[in-house]
């Protein structure tokens, strides 16, 4: 188990390096630079000094070399913009993003999985049709539009929830962004769950269970759920990646102080170390979640063993 963990962790290194290289190469050819975004009309002398100070004049391979060398010591460099260490910057942003992502996933699971189950138990029925129309609709909405509509409805018209911000860090601030972000994984989970349950319901071992004289409820409880979980977990793992992407939009819309909004700002302002660092952290997060999910597979599915 431990050696499995270590091996998996080692396996992520090439991915991480590739990400670093990719982002580095991309942003070494990106037009515009931090210096030009500092203000509309900056002092050209200061700008030149700034470029020099930030090493923007060095050749790419040199910059990359220094970056990787520093990275090896866990140093993500200093932000061009704030001159703070990127690690500190990200550390401050990580918790809000984690809150948001996990809250959305929780919303998605709590709503999506039961919905999928209910739909699958009577395929073609009214509940099924309604649930699936809902699910497909959830997938088809532009996130920021949905967020705005929710904001408009629940904050302004109904006055139930605050419309923006991290507030005092309290849960009520989390609800609208989490729901906005959670709608599409919810929809996907509902569909996956439904499909998984339907598929499993046709499996031979379900027929065996029925031949034992088991009621349908028991069949589902004893034999279908756990099998479905494997498929549901897979979808969840992949959805975490999509969530990290969509978080960029949602965080920006709701002024949520997470990595996503940091990332957009950094991209737009050419704060390359911050971009690099944020993407790296997002990737690491995705890899970590999927590692976790792999471990969970082992718990759920005995066919998978970590030798």
């Amino acid at each position, binding site marked *: 188990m431990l050696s499995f963990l270590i091996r998996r962790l080692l396996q992520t290194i090439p991915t991480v390096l590739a990400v670093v290289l990719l982002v580095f190469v991309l942003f070494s050819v990106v037009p515009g630079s931090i210096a030009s975004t500092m203000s509309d009309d900056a002092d050209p002398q200061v700008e030149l000094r700034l470029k020099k100070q930030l090493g923007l004049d060095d050749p790419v391979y040199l910059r990359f070399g220094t970056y990787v060398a520093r990275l090896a010591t866990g140093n993500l460099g200093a932000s061009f913009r704030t001159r703070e260490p990127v690690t500190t910057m990200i550390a401050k942003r990580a918790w809000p993003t984690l809150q948001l992502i996990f809250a959305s996933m929780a919303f998605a699971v709590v709503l999506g999985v039961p919905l999928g189950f209910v739909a699958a138990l009577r395929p073609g029925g009214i509940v099924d049709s309604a649930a699936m129309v809902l699910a497909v609709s959830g997938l088809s909405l532009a996130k920021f539009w949905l967020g705005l509509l929710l904001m408009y409805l629940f904050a302004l018209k109904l006055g139930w929830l605050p419309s923006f911000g991290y507030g005092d860090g309290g849960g009520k601030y989390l609800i609208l962004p989490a729901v906005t972000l959670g709608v599409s994984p919810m929809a996907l989970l509902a569909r996956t769950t439904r499909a998984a349950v339907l598929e499993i319901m046709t499996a*031979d*071992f379900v027929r065996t269970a029925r031949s034992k004289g*088991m009621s349908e409820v028991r069949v589902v409880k004893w034999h279908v759920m756990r099998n479905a979980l*494997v498929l549901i977990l897979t979808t969840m793992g992949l959805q975490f990646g999509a969530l990290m992407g969509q978080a960029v939009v949602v965080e920006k819309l709701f002024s949520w102080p997470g990595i996503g909004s940091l990332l957009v700002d950094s991209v737009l302002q050419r704060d390359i170390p911050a971009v690099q660092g944020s993407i790296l952290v997002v990737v690491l997060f995705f890899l970590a979640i999927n590692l976790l999910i792999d471990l969970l597979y082992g718990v*759920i599915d005995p066919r998978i063993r970590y030798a």
Partner: protein
Amino acid sequence: MTAAPLLEVEDLRIDLDDGARRVAAAEGVSFRISRGETFGLVGESGCGKSITALSLIGLLRPPLSIGSGVIRFEGREIQHLSAAAQRDLRGNRIAMIFQEPMTALNPVSPVGRQIAEMFVLHKGKSWREANQLAVEALASVRVPAPERRVHDYPHQLSGGMRQRVMIAIALACGPDLLIADEPTTALDVTVQAEIIELMRNLCAERGTAILMISHDLGLVANVCRRVAVMYAGRIVEERGSADIFRAPAHPYTQGLVDSLPRLGSRAALGRTRLKEIAGVVPAITSFPDGCRFNPRCAQASDICRTNAPTADFLEAGGLVRCHHHA
């Protein structure tokens, strides 16, 4: 044997709803099984053996359904019983073994638990007791070290072991009837021999009747006292197994027996050209009129093409469904 039959199937018809219309996937199926008897049902792939078996324990799922006919278990009609009453029978009084031991067991549940479920469902045991009983059940199907094996998952067992587990599940509650749907098709011959012997011995000990389904004539002949041969949804011949292959009455049975390259026949008779049955097995949606075997039958006459033959009861016992039977 004079006792009232354990299972009586009369004129069973199974409908297949293919969206546009209903076709009979099986029809006019009648047979009886007495207590403790071994009864065989043979036929080629798709002739309706499995659906007949499933209909007996109420496991047909749409698009299949029982169209008409009566199924009596211990004299009681069971095809219209409530779902709950059917569940009481299922597994408890009538048990079933399936073909694919790999997929018929839940891959994520330990085999011990899958056996124990039977005791919880039908004997009102607690899980604790049930687990204990599961060990015994596993021991009874001669799985070595059963107290360890109960914790194994299906994928950790070989095919033969899995099928033993299936048998343990099926026999857990001491059913009166065991339906074995091709229990050894997926296994190698040497393993098949063991499983069949095991099943036969256990059932003999407990007085459990067996409905043995197979496409292997040799196997059925060996295991069963009486055999029914199905073709295209109908039983065409039903006889004692000693007679049916030695002196087949129906041209189809005859054709099957003749077409098989039997072990030892080349040594005895030299290599002769195998007798073929012409043509192909008809599709369920395009069964021919009259006798369904008529397009492939050398003896077919006009009547065969128009009228479905009725069951002729033979003097020597059994029945045959042929206008021209021997």
